[in-house]
């Protein structure tokens, strides 16, 4: 027998306050039935004696102090899980919205999950080839990693994410691959773009979609990544899938957290975000990884749009401290028509060092990528110098760097949305580009490697193409 509470004592934003409540647990689910017959769901966020505060997922619009009944479910928010989830579409709170009816659940899990014991974790080492040179060559994605894309509004991050989904594969292993897609506060068009893309690439049957669109309630948005990751963990660690989780847009998620926090009257910290934003984001991002003795893995590629392209904004900043690197998109490259507009210098994959090189990709990969980074960073110096004294006044070495930078962006970074480069192609291209520079400028590569791979003049084949392209 469940007790039903009639009426409320207070409504404040998405929060309801009930008095005289007994036997209600922290974080328990509540169901609110309006007199109109409408059902809404909520969660207990604070208890003070007999007073309980409930956050309502669908919002409190239309609720008055008298027109509703509240029931408590006796358990925290759970998600029904089944292998049949693949190919289905759910709303932000995990309810099917594709008209195919409810799941027949295999099990139910608390969407908050629990922390993976650091002892049980397996250190990720096998790399995922995305077929994109700027990623495979310079910031390699590793299975079990969390590697966000730092973007800005208007940059082509969605295309990039779709391309990663289309082309991602693991070299040594063809185990089952699944995609969990979580949309948080994105526009309908964006959700459609992804749906169409999954369909065209024939991936739709391997995708689980959780959609919380821009007009959906913010409380649901806070649940969306948690539902998605619960599904991902279930598919990975129970059914052995390698799951790639794409989450977009983390910025909307954080704004939802801020909105909710301020309606609870919490003390704000930087830019109005609550002080627990770091812990909150960590509870999402840390749910990536691999576990000893289990077959599957959860890899995360969250997408966030940096407000005003500011990498020091709290959202990208806190994200960067938690995730294992980042792929940064750049407006300047985008405006010059470079796709993908990945700016390699601030981009980083922390797990890359243990997943590339001999036995993984190719022996020359670590030194080569290091050298490309170092050289491209000198390109920036040469460019800023050229902007002061003019390119003609540069020293010969600096001129070579200018040339290298131009070719690097044109041939290495730039590729078509449907071009899938193998790792060998990417690395060979890197060596070709380095041949623009004199050998004694290559200070990050040891002599044996240079004798083996460095071919002065190897650039000519590209340069030929370049000159033809110019005509």
């Amino acid at each position, binding site marked *: 027998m469940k007790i039903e509470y009639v009426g409320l004592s207070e409504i404040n934003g998405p929060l309801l306050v009930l008095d005289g409540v*007994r036997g*209600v*647990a*922290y*974080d*328990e689910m509540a169901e609110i039935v309006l007199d109109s017959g409408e059902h809404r769901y909520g969660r207990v966020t*604070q*208890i*003070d*004696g007999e007073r309980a505060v409930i956050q309502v997922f669908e919002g409190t619009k239309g609720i008055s102090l008298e027109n509703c009944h509240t029931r408590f479910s006796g358990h*925290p928010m759970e998600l029904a899980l089944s292998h049949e989830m693949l190919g289905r579409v759910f709303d932000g709170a995990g309810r099917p919205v594709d008209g195919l009816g409810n799941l027949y659940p295999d099990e139910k899990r*608390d969407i*908050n*999950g*629990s*922390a*993976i*014991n*650091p*002892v049980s*974790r397996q*250190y990720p080492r096998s790399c995922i080839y995305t077929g994109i040179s700027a990623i495979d060559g310079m910031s390699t994605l590793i299975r*079990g990693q969390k590697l966000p894309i730092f973007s800005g509004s208007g940059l082509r991050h969605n295309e990039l994410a779709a391309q990663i989904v289309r082309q991602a594969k693991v070299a040594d292993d063809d185990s089952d691959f699944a995609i969990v897609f979580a949309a948080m506060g994105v526009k309908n068009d964006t959700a459609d773009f992804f749906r169409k893309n999954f369909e065209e690439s024939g991936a739709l049957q391997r995708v689980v979609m959780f959609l919380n669109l821009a007009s959906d309630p913010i409380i649901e948005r806070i649940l969306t990544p948690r539902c998605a990751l619960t599904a991902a963990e279930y598919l990975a660690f129970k059914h052995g899938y390698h799951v790639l989780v794409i989450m977009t847009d983390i910025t909307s998620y954080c704004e939802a957290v801020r909105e909710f926090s301020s309606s609870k009257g919490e*003390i704000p*910290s*930087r830019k109005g975000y*609550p*002080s*627990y934003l*770091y*812990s909150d984001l*960590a509870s999402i*991002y*840390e*749910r990536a990884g691999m*576990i000893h003795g289990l077959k599957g893995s959860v890899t995360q590629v969250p997408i966030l749009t940096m407000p005003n392209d500011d*990498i*020091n904004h*709290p959202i990208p*900043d806190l994200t*960067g*401290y938690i995730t*294992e*690197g*980042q792929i940064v998109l750049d407006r300047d490259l985008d405006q010059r028509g470079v796709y993908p507009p990945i700016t390699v210098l*601030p981009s*980083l994959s922390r797990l890359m*060092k243990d997943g590339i090189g001999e036995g993984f990709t190719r022996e020359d990969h670590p030194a080569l990528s290091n050298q490309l*980074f*170092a050289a491209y*960073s*000198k390109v920036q110096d040469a460019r800023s*110098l050229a902007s*002061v*004294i003019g390119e003609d*006044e540069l*020293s010969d070495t600096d001129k070579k760097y200018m040339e290298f930078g131009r070719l690097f962006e044109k041939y290495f970074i730039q590729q078509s949305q449907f071009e899938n480069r193998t790792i060998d192609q990417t690395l060979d291209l890197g060596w070709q580009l380095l041949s623009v520079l004199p050998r004694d400028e290559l*200070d*990050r590569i*040891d002599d044996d490697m240079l004798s083996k791979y460095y071919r002065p003049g190897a650039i000519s084949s590209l340069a030929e193409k370049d000159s033809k392209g110019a005509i």
Partner: protein
Amino acid sequence: MGDSYYIHGINGPVVTVHGGRGLSVMDMVHVGNLGLIGEVVSVRSGETTVQVYEETAGLLPGEPVTSTGAPMSILLGPGLLNNIFDGIARPLRAIEKKSGNFIARGINLAALDIEKRWDVKMTIKPGDTLSPGAVFAETQETPAILHRSMVPPNISGTVKSVLPDGSYTVTDTLAVLETVNGQTFELKLAHEWPIRRARPVVNRLPIDRPLITGQRIIDTLFPIAKGGCAAIPGPFGAGKTVTQHQLAKWSDADIIVYLGCGERGNEMTQVLEEFGELIDPRTKQPLLNRTVLIANTSNMPVAAREASIYTGMTIAEYYRDMGYHVAIMADSTSRWAEALREISGRLEEMPAEEGFPAYLPSRLAEFYERAGYMETLSGTEGSVTVIGAVSPQGGDFSEPVTQNTKRFVRCFWALDRALAYARHYPAINWTTSYSEYTDDLSAWYEKRFGTKFAQLRTRMTNLLHEETQLLEIVKLIGSDMLPEDQKLTIEAARIIRLGFLQQNSFHDTDTYVPIEKQIKMMDVMMYFYDKAQELVSRNIPISQLRESGIADALIRIKYDVPNDNIDLIDSYFGKIDDAVDAVLAKN
């Protein structure tokens, strides 16, 4: 006590408790039917506030709360090394056995394995008078470390009975003491100590010897002393964690406490895997045999993150008391400060700067002041060195945690985003970093290496400073416009930056460099600068020297000269002479 306490309200990790006469502040309590571990943070008449170290979802008002009657303590004894704990010293390997791959709640396990038998050698006999902290038994804890069991710091007395040498568990009574006031006290291999109270020592000793890390820029330019404190601030991706790992691997401390405080789970896994395989150059044992790991990753409960740095410090002090040199790597103290802020927010305290509580500086000071070079109660000397990573928001060093940390550390290794982007590692910026220990340590360096070391270091620092200023000009007019002597400065500084300051932590030879090699490298690089002055004085362009490849040879010394044959460096003086003479001959 007879008082019964029950849960009244719940807000995240903060639980209010009613009933009884009120608990005492800092008491450890068990909350709810699951027995979640918590700590009393404030007491008012009729209401007690508790911070709970585990997830509080599912707690009901009215569930019982029981007090242990003692402050938050951990069990100290053999078995801490080569082990991994969470923020309140629960063994994660044992938790895995009990609850599987994901951490369950309400698991109350002691830090040490209470069933494991240790071979114990007793060092006392009946009738001995033992002072607090006296050693009464020895155990080979790992092949690298001899564990000395000590009388707890607040106990003393006369030995009444002693068991013979043999194999015992940490809970067996090995000896009985009669204390001054006639009571008996049972000595065991392990004893409990409250984590927030510093373990007493006889005396603080002056700091006068360095912690040798094998990292060139640290040992040479910004040395840290044994018993000192250092901070590594840097934006994300600048290499804080890699630097911490390098120090944990190669520094010449006897014991390393590696504290993963609110950081990534995969990083702790990496430490576990890597340290299990890497061999300590001094003891020839896997590094894990001298390491205690504390992992409270970012998704583990926030209150336990707050406690984790005290847990780590207490373990470090415990080994210091045995006469060891201990180094704590705290990664990262910013996450700890954020935990403090989060709990403070839940307690509805008045925030100070950026939402951090006003007591942030005093808590930081308390922590860093527990470091030091001490004369211990057991009559030995030991030290605790603290190396704390700081993760300033947006890489902005003016934020409160970095600023307040700067007040309590004397060594500051500022990591720089621009250097990291250029893949210059370690990305320690040599213009903004400093070490106040240089003077304290000069006597030590002088005794070993004569005055040469200090001279070389000063010359190298000056050269780098000159280069920084010249680069400002180069940015405006290009390097071709500079006079030859300044070109030489830039060339010599380039060799130092690439060949000396840059160090490849993934290269077998370069990852650890003995200090003798560092000095020779400095010497030969400065010799290059001096010798090439001959060209400048005769107005010969420095660029001619570049063709000889001598600069690249100098840069590659770090790879080409093995650490066990550093005399090879002497041959480079001749090479420099040859290269310069060849250029002179041509002109």
